[in-house]
């Protein structure tokens, strides 16, 4: 039985060379030859500079761009720290958000939560809503919504803030993706943002609609996965066709 020991070491070393070195090297060689663009990360270059990857999401916050989904990768769309929220369906943190104290002792947002995301989504995109307390009460001196106050209000057990949109919110707009790097949003999410982008760029909704339609990918082979809009590609197309004046 002891004669079984040595072959174990020898075959493992051989496998390390064959499967651990030769196999990935050969695969890299073939891939770089056949699919160089994809094998290197589907990078998009503009004026000689890499500005992103077609299939890795990046953050957009300005009103003239379509916005991606909420992200839990690092501090948001960190492509070296892919992750989701890891919060379960009965997590108060997921639904109402949490705050924390920063180094200076100020209360800041720890996790925004679905309720707060709904508020922002409605306000940004002009979706009508009802609120148990007028949102004006949550604005700071410069007129911006104070997220910390809102999260506190959602977490107020005695009389929590109840905020109800009058049109249903597309589910992907207010939930975090698994990778935190989701490059896509649903077509419904793009539609809901369309009016905002059209107004800030001074173009008609119809013109934009066409562009969104062109950038909507149908399910693969007609049946696999879901219809989706690539946010980065759409925004780049926007800048080309309807540059902001």
């Amino acid at each position, binding site marked *: 039985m002891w004669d079984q020991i040595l072959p174990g070491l020898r075959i493992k070393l051989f496998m390390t060379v064959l499967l651990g070195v030769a196999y990935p090297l050969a695969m890299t060689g073939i891939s770089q030859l056949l699919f160089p663009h994809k094998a290197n990360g589907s990078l998009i270059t503009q004026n000689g500079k890499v500005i992103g990857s077609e299939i890795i999401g990046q953050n957009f916050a300005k009103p003239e761009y379509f916005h991606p989904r909420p992200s839990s990768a690092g501090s948001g769309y960190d492509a070296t720290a892919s992750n989701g929220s890891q919060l379960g369906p009965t997590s108060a943190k997921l639904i109402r958000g949490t705050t924390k104290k920063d180094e200076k002792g100020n209360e800041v947002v720890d996790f925004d939560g679905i309720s707060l995301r709904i508020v922002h989504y409605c306000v940004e995109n002009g979706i009508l809503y009802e609120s148990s307390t007028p949102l004006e009460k949550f604005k700071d001196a410069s007129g911006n919504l104070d997220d910390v106050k809102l999260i506190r209000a959602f977490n107020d057990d005695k009389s929590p803030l109840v905020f109800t949109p009058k049109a249903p919110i597309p589910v992907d707009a207010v939930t975090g993706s698994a990778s935190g*790097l989701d490059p896509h949003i649903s077509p419904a999410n793009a539609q809901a943002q369309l009016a905002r982008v059209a107004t800030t760029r001074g173009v008609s909704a119809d013109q934009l609609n066409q562009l969104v339609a062109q950038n909507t990918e149908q399910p693969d082979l007609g049946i696999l996965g879901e219809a989706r809009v690539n946010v980065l590609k759409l925004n780049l197309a926007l800048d080309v066709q309807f540059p902001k004046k």
Partner: protein
Amino acid sequence: MTSIGVLQIAIFFGLILLCAKPLGSFMARVFEGERTFLHPVLRWLEVLTYKVSGIKEDVEQRWTTYTAALLSFSIFGFLLTYVLQRAQGFLPLNPQHFGAGQVPPDLAFNTATSFVTNTNWQAYSGESTLSYLVQMAALAVQNFASAAAGMAVAVALIRGFARQEKKTVGNFWVDVTRATVYVLLPIAILGGLLYVSQGAIQNFKPYTELTTVEGAKQVIAQGPVASQEAIKQLGTNGGGFFNANSAHPFENPTPVSNLLAMFLIFVIPGALTYTFGKMVGDTRQGWAIFAAFSVMFLIGVFVCYHFEQAGNPIVANLGVQSTAGGGQPGGNMEGKEVRFGIASSALFATVTTDASCGAINGWHDSYTALGGLVPLFNMETGEVIFGGVGAGLYGILLYCILAVFIAGLMVGRTPEYLGKKIEQKEVKMAMLAVIATAFSILVFTALSSVISFPVKGYWNPAGLATANLGNSGPHGLSEILYAYSSGTGNNGSAFGGLTANTPWYDLTIGLAMWIGRFLFLIPLLAAAGSLAAKKKIPSTAGTFPTHGPLFVGLLVGTVLIVGALTFFPALSLGPIVEHFLMHSGKLFSAILTPHLFWS
């Protein structure tokens, strides 16, 4: 559920069914040493492996020697993986300059165990911990090796049933080499290239630093991903290159690559049922097992899909659309990717936990209570629904032994399976495997639920181990239960909210992996040895046929009842109670303990 969603499930299942016979009969020929169409191309590699490793191709082994070979193979795999991780700072292909600091001993132990046992639990985050060389030469090699070892054990057990009055069950080294050279490597090469064609990356570049359209800095992780991705799925390993695993767009870029991933996970386990039938000389026996697999798989996938599409009523009450339609997926999209939607995510979660894969394309921690129950229960059955490569087949054969034993008790006859009398020794070995895994899951879960640690201890931050949870309430119990089920079942997927990278969890989950792998394998190899020595008895009118629907029903019943009896109490305190609380709108706040990391 949408019709397109159901169709995706049907297409996937059709592909597996279609490949069972051709691949299954190919593998039967490979393991019986017959020539196949790949021999002209690859026979030299097989011979070279024997030569380099000092293996004699035509020597057969008894079950004890076979087990010794398996252990030697695994232990050297463990040592090499451990050393390569700890030494990564001194080795090439390390553009991000990771060192031993990223992989302290407890983490390196956990990861080496994890990959050698085909678990691929990841207490680390790939893109910020491991060099390209470690990913390739340590982890991907174990992906091949642990899968090949699983196939070898399955084949040895099949030989136990197929042979009579023999003392040997085959040669471990030969089985492992053939599995690698003729089955795993060719499919991995094809699969890897398909992955790249979809957008999975395959390069050795340093991470790409760039400025985004809005002017922010973004660093994009790179690496030889596709080559690892293919064997990760094919070998039902599941350890991702990146933290987000198969949800990461570089690992799983499109719905097509998603289908490819699931296909690679199930194709060998599905086909091995045919190999089994072929080798024992009655393909109907193989199809009966395939049928039992299919029944349990389809129940699981539709339960999971139903509850994920139904979504979270608490979120729906906030005004979020919960039904699919109007250009959005509806359902529970927290922790899921838009390109996959609900159906492809629920299907993936079921497939990856039916098999002992453990890759994820969405976070199971964020699944609804009962949607998340399906992956949890799948693992607790011992992953015998198609199951891991080889592991699924030897696992279900264990349940076959129990099923005929129960049938024998009911009618008062000595149980037989495939003409072999099932006697005291086989049943004892089967029960040993079942009890060892149940013990590992439940006892470790119980311990971690109550244990508390002193201040400045090594094992965990001070206080209760439950402080490592990312969710409180019943979902927290599910997180612990999931971790040990995943470790013991050699699955490797996670309810990722649990902070599992502390010495306490690294060590106990590592132990669970060893128990789940070897206290399952060795009893089965012992049973194989005793079965091979037995005479075959001719079947008579009184023999219970093991290829009909009655047996399939009995087998499914045995799996479900053993699983339910063992785990129902724990499951009812976790996901089941959470389901009802979710519908009454109850929320749980985070546990308010200081979050100290050990250092």
